[in-house]
């Protein structure tokens, strides 16, 4: 790596140096699904192409030259890995979630972290709203009913419940949560929220704990990330507080909800309904849910539109280019 006098020892800009080596833990599906090639402005190190197991690969001279890591939500970036790759100064993940990255270790080592930023938040928010409408208005259930030819028979299909006037509690008022809130307001819902801290520039009522939020709401939309505090945060108690007509929508991570308890409450009629894009043990979905008409099940596809994936691919490339041009990251994960 040649240094350039005006950069004070900082690495030279992208166009004046060989392509920076980036450790690619797994080929990002977002690129392959869209048939987009990875940019050749970077030299991607691909451990799966080496005969060495990952552990040994990380000890190789090739790997140790890595200046950045590009990962997805599936492959962990551990403290151990970071210890073995002292040249790494940036971790980019294609996911919004960070639970697979030892962010604390990154901070300790001065390693920058970038995630999916806003690339997915509109699609995820749209799906959250779509699931809520579906549960309340029985869209999927009525569609099934119609296709059986049942409508030609006697009954009036069971009536749904009006969206307008419903009190909806957003759990986690981040990028996605805020977009869910904005959309729900247009339907006449009364929005309130729980988050780690109250947000100063937001007018929605804040509840300091999720049980209190549930007590004051008709529906909860889970929009937060998964971490130690949020694991099984939605307990049986929280769901009971939502009431017999209560609805829970989850577009965060399956383990934020105590799934076993939720299933039991749904089966027993103690919870009104659920719209779920995520589950504790994907792609396994609790059998009991498959028989219920008041749940809507989505196979973790909240971000899978060509629009979001394309935005994400652009973002990954731009983050890498920015970092190696000494410009600010577009979607840095900042301390809160």
């Amino acid at each position, binding site marked *: 790596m040649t240094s350039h006098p005006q950069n004070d020892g900082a690495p030279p800009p992208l166009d004046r140096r060989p392509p920076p080596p980036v450790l690619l833990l797994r080929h990002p599906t977002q690129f392959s699904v869209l048939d987009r090639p990875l940019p050749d402005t970077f030299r991607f190190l691909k451990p799966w192409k080496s005969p060495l197991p990952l552990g040994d690969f990380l000890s190789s001279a090739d790997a140790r030259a890595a200046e950045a890591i590009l990962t997805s939500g599936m492959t962990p970036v551990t403290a151990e890995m970071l210890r073995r790759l002292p040249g790494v100064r940036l971790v980019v993940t294609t996911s919004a979630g960070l639970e697979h990255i030892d962010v604390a270790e990154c901070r300790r080592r001065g390693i920058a972290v970038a995630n999916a930023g806003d690339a997915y938040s509109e699609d995820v928010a749209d799906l959250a709203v779509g699931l809520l409408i579906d549960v309340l208005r029985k869209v999927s259930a009525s569609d099934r009913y119609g296709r059986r030819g049942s409508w030609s028979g006697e009954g*009036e*299909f069971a009536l749904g419940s009006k*969206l307008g006037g419903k009190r909806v509690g957003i759990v986690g008022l981040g990028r996605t949560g805020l977009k869910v809130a904005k959309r729900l307001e247009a339907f*006449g819902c009364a929005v309130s929220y729980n988050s780690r801290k109250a947000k100063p520039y937001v007018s929605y009522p804040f509840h300091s704990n999720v049980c209190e939020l549930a007590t004051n709401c008709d529906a909860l939309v889970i929009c937060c990330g998964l971490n130690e505090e949020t694991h099984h945060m939605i307990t049986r108690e929280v769901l009971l507080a939502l009431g017999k007509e209560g609805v829970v929508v989850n577009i965060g991570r399956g383990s934020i909800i105590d799934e076993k308890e939720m299933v039991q409450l749904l089966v027993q009629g103690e919870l009104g309904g659920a719209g779920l894009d995520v589950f504790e043990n994907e792609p396994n979905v609790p059998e009991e849910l498959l028989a219920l008409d008041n749940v809507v099940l989505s196979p973790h596809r909240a971000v899978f539109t060509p629009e979001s994936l394309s935005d994400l691919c652009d973002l990954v490339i731009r983050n890498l280019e920015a970092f190696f041009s000494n410009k600010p990251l577009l979607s840095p994960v900042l301390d809160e």
Partner: protein
Amino acid sequence: MDSIGVLMACPMNAYLEQELEKRFRLFRFWQVPQKPQFLKEHAASIRAVVGSSVAGADAELIEALPRLEIVSSFSVGLDKIDLGKCREKGIRVTNTPDVLTEDVADLAIGLCLAVLRRICASDKYVRSGKWKKGDFRLTTKFTGKTVGIIGLGRIGTAIAKRAEAFNCPISYNSRTEKPDCKYKYYPSVVELASNCHILIVACPLTPETRHIINREVIDALGPKGVLINIGRGPHVDEPELVSALVEGRLGGAGLDVYEHEPEVPEELFGLENVVLLPHVGSGTVETRNAMADLVLGNLEAHFTNKPLLTPVV
């Protein structure tokens, strides 16, 4: 008032039926074995008809009820009532506007999301166990898509307001351009269809708007376009719609209404880019109760010589 005869045209709501039974002498037209015989016997005591989107009061029925004073519809749509005949005979007509506006608009957006994001199809995918074998396909983003609305009345406006929250640019067609309207107007439905991704039918059904969605409009909407119908089945040339969907010339459809309800074209059953609802636009407990109360309120007002709550004629 329990001597006043009220003819209920078809089943529509249990609460409404109960209340009508309590307050009036209720006749259930659908339970009558011989309609001509029934009318001969009871026509003289029938002073009101309660109709819905399914059955109302056509010219024939109106002629058969010489003492008919009021038709109160459990719907906002008036296409099942011969309004001309009612005007001619001085018969009052009421409907249920406003109380159902939000529910219908909510469902229109729910259908947009269900079709574009394949919510119903992916629910089916999970229930059938297919997720264990592989991921579901990509779906289409809703935020930011251009939405074209036919009919910018109460319901059309409510749909626009909701779609705006998803940053959808809104355009519309209606009989006349609305002054001071921030949405883009297109003078023809074909032009509107050519310039939007999602076309939503939200106008009343009249002789002019019958088959307003025809082959030309469907072609203009195209293989990526989506049609949402929360109006009336006859707004759409249904055989044209079905063949366009089956042949892939139209991207998708979310339908709450059909030309010959309760029949739904079977050819659509196997398509995952179609959502088929059994006319539930206003189908919530809250709204149906509010609609029933309006029907009852209008009848009460009429028979106690007070101003009608929601008169049309």
